[in-house]
C-alpha cells in the first residue's frame, strides 16, 4: 500500500498511520492469521469500497452494541462506522419510524447479495412471533426477509447466537437464536453477554479482507475466538493446579486472587477467549475472573443463565489433581535421640575397629621385623 492511500486513511478515519497499522496487526494476531495478513487487512480497510451492514435488534438489552461503542481502542467506533456502511442500526440511527424502515428496504434492494446482516437479540417464535415487532413486522419475519439477500449472517451476543437470557426457562415467548431460524446459509455466532467487540470486529474484517468467513466450529463460532476453554488460558489457572481456592467471597484466598472454581466459576466448561484478549481495553485483569468474580459461562448454551451462578462447574477435560501439595511445609526436626545413638554407635564401632586395626598392624610389623631375615 502506498503513502497516498495511507494519507487517505489518516483523513478518513482520523487515525495516525501508526495507530492504523497497529490496529491491523492486532486484528491479524487476534485471529491467528499468518504473517502478511496484516498488510492485506490494511489494504482491505483502506479501500474506498465499504460493505453495507444491516444491524437488527430484537429481544435484547443492546449491551453488545454498547460495549462495541465503548471499546476504547483508538477511534474504534469511527473505524467501524467509516469502514463499513452502517445502513440500518436502530440504536445509532438518526432516522426514525417509517423513514428508517424505508432506508433498510432501500439498502437491501440496492445491495442484494452483498450486504452483511448482523443480528443482535433473540427471536420469539411462539404464537407466530407476535411478542417482538418492529414497524408492525414480527422479528421472525424480519430476520428471514433480511437474511434472504445477505452475503453473510452474523449473530452477535448469546441471545442471537442461541437464545441467551430470554430463552431461559420458562421462556414464555419461545425465544430462539438465529441459527435455529436461518437454516439455508451459515450463521456466524459470536456468543457472550455482551460479546467481545473484538471478536465481531475480527470476523467482519476477515470477511472484508478475504471475502469469506473465518473458520467456524460446529456451533458457528469463529475458531480463533472459541476453540479453547476459558480455563486453559486463565490467569488464575496455576492456583487451580496447585489447589489454592477461594472458598467464599472476601476470604483470605479470595483476597489473594486464588482460583474461583469453588465459587462456581464456569471457566472449566466455557469456550471463549476472554482471558486472552480481556474486555473493554482497560488493561490487565479487566474481565470477570480478573476482577474476582467467577465466570458465569455467559457465552455457553446450557451454562450461562441456566446453571446457578455459584453451582460448581463440570470440568471438561482439565481435572483437578488427585492430590495437592502440602500448604504447610514441614521444615524437619533436629537430631532425635535414637538416630543420634545410631550415629554415635556406628562412629564408635568404626573408631574402635580402626584403633584395634592400627594396633594389630603395629604388632604385625613387630612380628615381621623380628621374623624377617
Amino acid at each position, binding site marked *: 500500500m502506498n503513502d497516498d492511500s495511507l494519507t487517505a486513511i489518516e483523513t478518513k478515519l482520523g487515525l495516525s498511520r501508526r495507530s492504523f497499522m497497529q490496529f491491523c496487526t492486532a486484528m491479524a494476531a487476534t485471529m491467528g492469521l499468518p504473517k502478511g495478513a496484516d498488510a492485506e487487512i490494511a489494504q482491505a480497510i483502506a479501500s474506498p469500497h465499504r460493505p453495507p451492514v444491516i444491524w437488527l435488534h430484537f429481544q435484547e438489552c443492546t449491551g453488545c452494541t454498547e460495549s462495541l461503542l465503548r471499546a476504547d481502542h483508538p477511534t474504534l467506533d469511527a473505524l467501524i462506522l467509516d469502514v463499513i456502511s452502517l445502513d440500518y442500526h436502530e440504536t445509532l440511527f438518526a432516522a426514525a419510524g417509517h423513514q428508517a424502515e424505508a432506508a433498510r428496504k432501500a439498502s437491501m434492494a440496492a445491495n442484494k447479495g452483498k450486504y452483511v446482516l448482523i443480528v443482535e437479540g433473540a427471536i420469539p417464535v411462539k404464537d407466530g412471533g407476535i411478542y417482538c415487532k418492529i414497524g408492525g413486522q414480527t422479528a421472525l419475519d424480519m430476520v428471514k426477509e433480511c437474511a434472504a439477500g445477505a452475503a453473510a449472517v452474523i449473530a452477535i451476543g448469546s441471545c442471537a447466537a442461541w437464545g441467551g437470557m430470554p430463552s431461559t426457562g420458562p421462556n414464555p415467548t419461545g425465544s430462539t437464536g438465529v441459527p435455529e431460524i436461518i437454516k439455508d446459509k451459515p450463521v456466524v455466532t459470536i456468543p457472550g453477554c455482551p460479546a467481545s467487540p473484538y471478536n465481531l470486529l475480527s470476523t467482519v474484517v476477515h470477511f472484508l479482507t478475504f471475502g469469506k468467513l473465518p473458520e467456524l466450529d460446529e456451533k458457528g463460532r469463529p475458531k480463533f475466538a472459541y476453540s479453547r476453554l476459558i480455563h486453559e488460558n486463565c490467569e488464575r489457572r496455576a492456583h487451580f493446579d496447585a489447589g489454592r481456592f477461594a472458598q467464599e467471597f472476601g476470604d483470605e484466598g479470595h483476597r489473594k486472587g486464588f482460583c474461583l472454581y469453588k465459587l462456581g466459576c464456569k471457566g472449566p466448561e466455557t469456550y471463549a477467549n476472554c482471558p486472552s484478549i480481556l474486555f473493554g481495553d482497560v488493561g490487565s485483569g479487566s474481565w470477570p475472573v480478573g476482577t474476582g468474580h467467577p465466570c458465569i459461562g455467559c457465552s455457553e448454551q446450557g451454562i450461562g443463565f441456566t446453571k446457578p451462578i455459584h453451582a460448581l462447574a463440570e470440568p471438561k477435560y482439565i481435572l483437578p489433581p488427585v492430590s495437592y501439595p502440602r500448604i504447610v*511445609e*514441614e*521444615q*524437619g*526436626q*533436629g*537430631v*532425635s535421640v*535414637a*538416630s*543420634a545413638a*545410631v*550415629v554415635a554407635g*556406628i562412629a564408635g564401632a568404626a573408631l574402635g575397629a*580402626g584403633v584395634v*586395626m*592400627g*594396633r*594389630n*598392624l*603395629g604388632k*604385625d*610389623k613387630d612380628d*615381621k621385623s623380628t621374623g624377617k631375615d
Partner: protein
Amino acid sequence: MKIAPLGGPLITKTTVTAAILTVLMAGLILYRFVFGLGAVTNLNNGYPFGLWIVYDLVIGTAFACGGYGMALLVYVLNKGEYHALVRPALLASMFGYTLGGVSVIFDIGRWWNAWHIITPGWANPTSVMFEVGACITLYCLVMWIEFTPAFLEKWAPPKSRKALGKVMYVFIALGVLLPTMHQSSLGTLLVPFGFRLHPLWQTHLLPPLFLISALCMGYAMVVFEATLVSKAYRRPSEADLLARLSKYISGLLVAYLALRWGGLAVEGKLALAFDSGGLSTMFLFENLLFALPILLLSSDKGRRNPQTLFIAAVCMLLAGSLYRLDAFLLATDRPGWHYFPAIGEILVSVGIVAVEVLAYVVFVKMLPVLEVADEGGPVLHTVKRADLAATTQE
C-alpha cells in the same frame, strides 16, 4: 607371582553380617519406593540432599576413586610397578561407583522416572546435575568393562580376552577422563548454592579442590584396603609399593592445601578461617586432617610403617569426607530448616557399605583380583615393564 582367585569359604562372620545388613537395606528401600521418601528419610524441601547423596554419592564415589587414581598412575604416568594394586582398586571403585549411582535412584522422589536423567529428549544437558549423572553412569559402565578380563579369565576362552585387550585402551582412557570430569563437577554442583554456602567453602576453586581431594581419598582407600586385605587374608604386605605410592599422596595433599589456603588468601577470606565460630573449628579440623598425613608420611620410616600408613590413610579419608560433609550440609545456611538423618536413612547407607564389603569379599575369593604368591616364594614387587605387559596379556 600371578593374579588369581584367593579361594576359601564364602560364609564367614564378615559375609553373614554384611548379608544381614544388606537384607535390612533392601527392605527399607522397598518401603521407601512404595511409601515415598518421607516414610524413611528426614529430607525436606530445605534439605533435599541428605545422607544418601552426601555420603553414598558424593563421599562414596570419592572413596571409590582408587581405581581412577591407580589408572592415572599406571597407564597415564606409566608407573607399571603399581600394576598389582590396579585390579583390587578397580574392583572397589566399581562397587563404590555402581552403588553410589544406584543410590541416586533411591533419592529421586519419582524414582520410576530415573531413566529420564540420561535419556535424550528427557535429559537436561545444560544442568550440572546432568553432567554428574551421565558421567557417573557412563563411568560405571566403563569400569565393568575394564573389569571384564577378570570374568573372562575365569570363564571364557583366551581368544575373547585378546579381542577385548585390543580395544581396552579406549575404556582405560575413558576411565581416566570421566572421573576427572564428574569429580570436579561435584564441586561445581555447589556453585548454585551461592551465598547459602559459607564463603570458606564457596570459592572459585571448588572444582579443582573436589578433584584433588577425591584423588587423595582414592589413593588413601587403596592404602587402607591393601592394609586391610593383607591383614584379613594374611597375605604378604604390599608395604613397599604403598610406601612409594604415599610420596605421590603427600604431593597431592600439599597441592590441595596450597590451593585451599592460597585461594582464600587471594579472595581475601583468610580471616574467616578463624572468626566464623563453629564453622571455623570445622574448617581448621578439616585442614588439620589434610595436613597430618603429610607429617606422618614425611619420613621414609613413616612411609614403611603399615601402622603409620594406615593412620595417614584414615586421616585422608576423614579429611575428604569432612570437606564434603561441610560443603554439602554443615556449612550451608538454610534458616528455619533442620535435618538430621533418620535411622532408616542411616541403615540404608550402612547397608550400601555392607553390599560393597560382601561383593568385594565374594569377588576376590572367586575371581582373579589379587596377586598371590607362588607356592612358598616371597612376594617381590619389582615388576618390570615386561612383566606388566605379561600380566596385562594374562
